[in-house]
């Protein structure tokens, strides 16, 4: 109907708000569904109050990614009170609409699964749609869980505190004997209110909060944040800085993937790979620490560039250590993928179909294991990725094996990428000054973190301060994939399925 009213733009640019037309909700709905039918997926979807006044309307923005065109489409509308839910026709919006309901007291009419997401008070002065009292903090996990009734049907509840050294979350299984009929995941225990703290910025504390949005993705989130400020201030970091960021991002991927493969091997009782990989993961982290002093890359990526140079002796150290690490990594990982007893446990466990993955809007490793080609290094490249990445790793079966094997192959691909990046590390500065942020503008930033795409979106006010900052961690999409993978599986396979996704609780909760 209204194709002409869409704003299409590329990653790395900012769009003045006046250029984004205000659609009626009916137009917005129709355009969004048309776009999704034409192969777009929802990268981000969020609201912001039009003004500070009580009862102000809420503006909704949809960021749709057209991967193969390398384009992003923007849609904007206004609502107040309630609006017809889009979830029944576009399931990948289910959590985004629940978020809107929780944050702004809006009611998406007809939402099939309207429950709180993170258990906090509404962000604006409005009545809570679940009728929770304003005077007290909501109780986490206090919601109606989906229940199955019948003879020999039982319910298993796990968490928030888990048995290992793991973040908190609550899992509710509906079981018939060993078989899981349904798993419902309720999070929010790690909710720190990061998006709210970023309003009015950029503040000096912001980058540290974003590095700790999901601590195992510090480089991913810090890169997304830096790219966003660079887009909004029409500046670009020097090429050398971009390459160092790319190396750090691949090191983060290596550390986590190697660790995950070790943990998967451990979960099926294959101890050699589990112990070797535990050590190797640390060695990759230590390499990041050689670069910036922190095993998690804290302090490396900064708006405008990077904080540390990779030069002289250190460059040599990198090359030598990587050579040894590659040999040990291949030895440790191949052992497990050559072992029939391991493969027998991986194959066919926890499958997610390609259709489900697409409907739920999965991203990253979880999506690529289901045959979906989704990798923002390929589709939405920025910096040193432009033209430098053409090998997304795809598996088709969507089971634990596929997710493990995507990691397995990505480990080797990342090692290769780092070698190339080190070889063509450009000279020059590592940081450039950042200008003031463009006022009344919107920018989107994507970064392919090790779990999948990290999407940051910011809208500035008339003075060029952050008015709304939206973070979408890959885990936000992918927790639904984990729930789906458990259907019809044995409950004893939950740890294995969970590890094969290895999602972030704090990245979801923010």
């Amino acid at each position, binding site marked *: 109907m209204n194709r002409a009213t869409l704003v299409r733009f590329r990653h790395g640019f900012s769009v003045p708000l006046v250029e984004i037309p205000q659609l009626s909700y009916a137009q917005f709905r129709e355009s969004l569904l048309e776009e999704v039918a034409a192969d777009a997926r929802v990268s981000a979807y969020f609201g912001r109050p039009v003004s500070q006044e009580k009862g102000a309307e809420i503006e909704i923005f949809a960021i749709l990614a057209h991967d193969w065109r390398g384009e992003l489409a923007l849609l904007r509308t206004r609502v107040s009170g309630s609006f017809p839910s889009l979830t029944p026709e576009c399931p990948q919006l289910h959590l985004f609409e629940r978020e809107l309901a929780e944050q702004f007291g809006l009611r998406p009419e007809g939402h099939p699964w309207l429950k709180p997401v993170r258990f906090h008070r509404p962000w604006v002065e409005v009545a809570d749609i679940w009728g929770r009292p304003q005077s007290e903090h909501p109780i986490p996990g206090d919601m109606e869980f989906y229940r199955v009734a019948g003879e020999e049907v039982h319910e298993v509840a796990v968490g928030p505190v888990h048995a290992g050294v793991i973040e*908190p979350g609550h899992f509710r299984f509906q079981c018939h004997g060993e078989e899981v009929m349904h798993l419902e995941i309720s999070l929010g*225990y790690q909710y720190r209110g990061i998006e709210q*703290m970023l309003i009015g910025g950029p503040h*000096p504390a912001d980058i540290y909060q974003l590095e700790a949005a999901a601590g195992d993705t510090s480089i991913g989130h810090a890169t997304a944040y830096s790219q966003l400020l660079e887009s909004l201030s029409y500046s670009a970091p020097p090429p050398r800085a971009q390459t160092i960021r790319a190396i750090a991002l691949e090191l983060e991927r290596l550390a986590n993937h190697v660790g995950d493969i070790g943990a998967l091997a451990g979960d099926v009782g294959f101890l050699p790979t589990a112990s070797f990989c535990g*050590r190797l*993961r640390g060695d990759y982290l230590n390499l990041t620490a050689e670069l910036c002093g*922190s095993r998690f890359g804290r302090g490396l990526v900064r708006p405008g560039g990077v904080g540390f140079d990779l030069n002289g002796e250190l460059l040599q150290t990198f090359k030598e250590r990587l050579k040894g690490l590659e040999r*040990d990594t291949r030895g440790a990982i191949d*052992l497990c993928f050559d072992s029939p007893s391991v493969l027998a446990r991986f194959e066919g466990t926890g499958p997610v179909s390609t259709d489900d993955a697409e409907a739920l809007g999965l991203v990253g490793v979880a999506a690529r294991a289901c045959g979906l080609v989704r990798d923002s290094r390929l589709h939405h490249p920025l910096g040193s990725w432009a033209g430098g990445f053409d090998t997304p790793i795809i598996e088709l079966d969507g089971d634990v094996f596929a997710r493990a094997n995507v990691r397995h192959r990505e480990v080797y691909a990342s090692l290769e990428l780092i070698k190339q990046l080190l070889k063509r590390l450009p000279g020059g500065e590592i940081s450039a000054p950042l200008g003031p942020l463009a006022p009344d503008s919107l920018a989107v930033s994507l970064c392919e973190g090790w779990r999948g795409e990290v999407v940051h979106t910011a809208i500035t006010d008339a003075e060029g301060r952050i008015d709304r900052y939206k973070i979408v961690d890959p885990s936000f999409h992918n927790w639904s994939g984990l729930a789906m993978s458990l259907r019809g599986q044995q409950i004893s396979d939950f740890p294995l399925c969970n590890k094969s996704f290895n999602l972030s609780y704090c990245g979801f909760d923010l």
Partner: protein
Amino acid sequence: MLSIIRERLRQGHRTAKFPKVEPTLPQRFRGLPRLHENLTPEVIGAAVASCPFTALSNNAGELRIDLGRCLFCADCPAIAHGALSFSNDYRLASNLREGLLLDDEAYRLADKLGERMLKLFGRSLKLRQVSAGGCNACEADINVLGTLVFDLGRFGIQFVASPRHADGMLVTGPVTENMKSALLETYAAIPEPKLVIASGACSIAGGPFCSSPEVNQGVGELLPVDLYIPGCPPHPYTVLDGLLRLLGKR
């Protein structure tokens, strides 16, 4: 089977000789801060004002740093003012919250437990870990202690799956409003006598999230703490050093 044995031999023995041999940390590692001497009031004032997490204060004309609030930032603005620098010393744990305040006197590291507690826990310490708003970096670097490099088990320390099996609780994260009751219930479920260890800047004073209304300012606001381990996140050796000091093994 043969390939497993061959790979095992090739990977070699990787357990570090800690604590007999000190670890080699990266040159750029940021450990115990060193406050510079003879700072002018202007420099102190500028440094104090520059820290976004109020880790610096002016203590009767002398600069003081609170290691519980310090995130050991790479781009610490106080360094730019010439007020301090970071050393390579990874040993940071303290028994007391006030012990984390560093001024010109030597930093006092954690002491071992009292005689009775040491008799109970000195040879076997079982801990329950509760993540209460952590970003998973502290958790990841505690998990690392279980790998063959650190081999935590050889010191008699183990993380257990139930508070009923635990002698104490190791807390990470600032304690979000949403984790408060789960944390307190876990604590209540641990048999007496019990220890509480706050690991990481968040659990000591709220870390990077200290200004959020959704979090508490660390576990010390809610429970008595026996050991504070600074860092964002603390290096695994910082954690291990703290635990061993508590048990009188260093």
